[in-house]
């Protein structure tokens, strides 16, 4: 598989005001590329939750978007830390370590990673104190 479209986005730490901007850009880019709307909706949920996680929990990071020649969309969210101490708990619906500030804004429901996993076709997460890399893929055939 070869990438026919590549974009890189930067997400800033604690930038609540712009949360969702990168996800919207990704959705727009893929819409123009002809990705079916049902797939776009799944990607939007996963991208938004992942972007929010970078803002709330990580020290910002980068998002790499690739559209492969077979129609598969790949998203890689990479942050520089501080890592997820207990991945199993982080994947448990309702479990959250979000700050009071984040919770007051309606974040921190503990549904981020569970939502991402549910809507993605493949879900791979590696985390250490040096950072977290979340790799997701979405098949255009799985609308």
């Amino acid at each position, binding site marked *: 598989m070869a990438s026919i479209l590549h974009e890189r986005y930067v997400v800033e730490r604690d930038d609540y005001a712009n949360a969702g901007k990168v*996800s919207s850009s990704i959705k727009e880019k893929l819409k123009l590329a002809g990705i079916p709307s049902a797939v776009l909706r799944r990607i*939007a*949920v996963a991208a938004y939750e992942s972007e929010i996680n970078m803002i709330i929990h990580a020290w910002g990071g980068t998002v790499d978007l690739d559209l492969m020649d077979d129609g598969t969309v790949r998203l890689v969210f990479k942050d520089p830390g501080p890592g997820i101490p207990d991945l199993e708990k982080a994947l448990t619906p309702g479990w959250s370590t979000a700050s009071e500030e984040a919770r007051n804004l*309606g*974040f921190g429901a503990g549904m981020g990673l569970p*939502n991402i996993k549910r809507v993605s076709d493949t879900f791979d997460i590696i985390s250490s104190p040096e950072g977290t890399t979340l790799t997701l893929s979405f098949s255009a055939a799985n609308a």
Partner: protein
Amino acid sequence: MRISELVSKTGWKVTTPGLDLEKEIHGAYCGDLLSWVMGNGEPEQAWITVQVHMNVIAVAKLREFSCIIIADGASLPPEVTAKAEEEEIPVLESGIPVFETAKILVEAGV
């Protein structure tokens, strides 16, 4: 039901009067926890919430809601209203609690 019909029936304030109110509403979702809304909302629904910060607009756009209905007397700050207009997300204010707002939607046939 179209947003404009709902406004006619309820008299709710339209926060974004310059936007297209002829969009259809198919059902509604009530919630203030954004991940629940992202995970469980459906396109073309009206979203009833008391959250009034910038991220509400991002969630509504990404989830493709028909409109946002702000309940319980809350209202959008000017910069969030401007964002809603920029993103073309119609926003109404019901001025009454979430439950009452939802009840009226049901009675109106949404």
